[in-house]
């Protein structure tokens, strides 16, 4: 039997397979490279990088919820210059695709970071959906008009590198925001970031997170994330990268069926360091069992009649 092809092409960039490590759960890849070669991955979306070093929020930064978790790390990162100098050479040598996830407090921050990374990474993913920072972050990602204008402003600096806009699910209409990103010039969109949530210790009457609220992720969000990716895929013609609670290969297949050209896996890494290689193996098995030679035949293959 011929080994099925898992290769996908997004904005002219070829990925070995459509499974990408999601930003914030995978650092800059070093830790997981102790478990498996990073070249196995479709790609890595790196830890959200800001213009300058950020210390992040106070602890506790994590709380378990039923079939999910809340996090409020608050974009702790070394800043874009340290990323380029200290992390990028390692990532480059790892033989996987590098998506630099970027975040900022102002449009100017985003533009400055994009300018520095333009031409240095395979794709830039603009995070306008982080729920855990006080200024910026999600603020740019709520209204379609602001999604459009920040996309337009940042895209001007991504002359050599395709721009992904990472959408927030905490919005009135995901279709409208997807369209706003596309009309603003995004080359690709990715969704969903985490849902804003909270949890409380009733004995202490205190929130479980120091930030009070945090971003909910994990299997509990998957049906909502899948519906949003389905709607976004219908709304725009640019490629869509889907994510939200993917733990297994069958979860990934669901996102591909609604039209996502690739998926990102985040929370699953936290509970199982081997999650991504296992998902890739599972996808290969699914294709073989269903006699599909090329994963692209699966993408958008949902039957609704």
């Amino acid at each position, binding site marked *: 039997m011929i080994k099925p092809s898992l290769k996908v092409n997004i904005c002219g960039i070829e990925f070995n397979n459509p499974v990408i490590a999601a930003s914030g759960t995978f650092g800059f890849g070093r830790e997981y490279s102790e478990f498996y070669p990073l070249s196995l991955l479709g790609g890595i979306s790196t830890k959200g990088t800001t213009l300058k070093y950020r210390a992040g929020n106070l602890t506790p930064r994590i709380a378990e919820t039923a079939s999910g978790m809340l996090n409020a790390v608050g974009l702790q990162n070394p800043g874009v210059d340290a990323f380029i100098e200290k992390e990028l050479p390692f990532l480059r040598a790892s033989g996987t695709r590098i998506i630099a996830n970027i975040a900022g407090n102002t449009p100017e921050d985003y533009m400055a970071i994009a300018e520095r990374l333009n031409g240095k990474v395979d794709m830039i993913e603009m995070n306008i959906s982080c729920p855990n920072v006080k200024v910026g972050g999600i603020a740019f990602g709520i209204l379609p008009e602001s999604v459009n204008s920040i996309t337009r402003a940042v895209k001007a600096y991504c002359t050599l590198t395709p721009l992904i806009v990472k959408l927030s699910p905490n919005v009135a209409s995901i279709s409208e925001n997807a369209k706003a990103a596309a009309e603003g010039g995004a080359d690709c969109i990715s969704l969903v970031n985490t849902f804003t949530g909270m949890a409380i210790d009733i004995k202490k009457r205190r929130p479980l997170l120091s930030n009070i609220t945090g971003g909910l992720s994990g299997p509990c969000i998957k049906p909502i994330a899948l519906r949003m990716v389905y709607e976004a895929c219908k709304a725009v013609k640019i490629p869509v990268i889907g994510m939200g609670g993917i733990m297994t290969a069958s979860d990934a297949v669901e996102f591909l069926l609604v039209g996502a050209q690739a998926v990102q896996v985040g929370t699953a890494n*936290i509970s199982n360091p081997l999650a991504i290689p296992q998902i890739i193996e599972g996808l290969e098995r699914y294709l073989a069992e269903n006699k599909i030679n090329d994963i692209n035949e699966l993408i958008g293959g949902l039957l609704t009649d």
Partner: protein
Amino acid sequence: MRELELTITQNIKIAENIYRMDFSLTEGVGAIQCGQFLNLSLNRPDLLLKRPFGICSYDKDGRSITICYQLAGKGTQEMSTMQAGDKLMATLPLGNGFKLCDSYKKVALIGGGVGIFPLLSVPLNYPDKEYYSFLGYRSKSFVCMKKEFEAFCCSRIATDDGSLGQKGNAVELFLSNYDSIKPDVILACGPTVMLKALKKGLKENNINTPAFVSLEERMGCGVGACLVCVCQLEKREGVAANARVCKDGPVFNILEVEL
């Protein structure tokens, strides 16, 4: 560090709310350093996160491992119902453990609550030291692993209510015995409030003995990627920085971390 399947060989209650769980591994993890921990999966999709536990004993090849745990929430409740033969995935061994240089002959171990357990592993890597332990428990019914400590230590106990040993906590117990022992190094593990008291106590009493503490923090991945379990380092030339408890620690020099 590896992701491996562990088989429970024993799961018994050893004191009030406290259990001991022994595992065997078909594939050994190799050498473990005292003070390292494992991140244990609970086989329940609704309990998504792994739980970190200090490893309290192990053999040379890492084929048999013991942890102890206190009932604290859903995860540990679930663990208490598990049986010999049950299999769990775990990531191990994790973190930087306790390291002792040759010049340290007399070692003081200070443990509070579940913090006593990782200290049990220290003589496995360093059998030829002179050990003194200062163990703090809530009360008599919580006392456990007493004999195990007495097997390699001159061991003293304190309880919060005075129902066994000295009334008070492990740090007070240590400080009141410091002059008669004068250890070369201090290793401590326990709740942050205890480690804070130790840092303050050493400073107030002008004790300059090197001290290493194993920190506790809510964790995610356990391997250093998710940046959930950070602690603050003492400022260097006015610059603050975070360290990851799981990867850069859990053991830190007491002078380097803010408590």
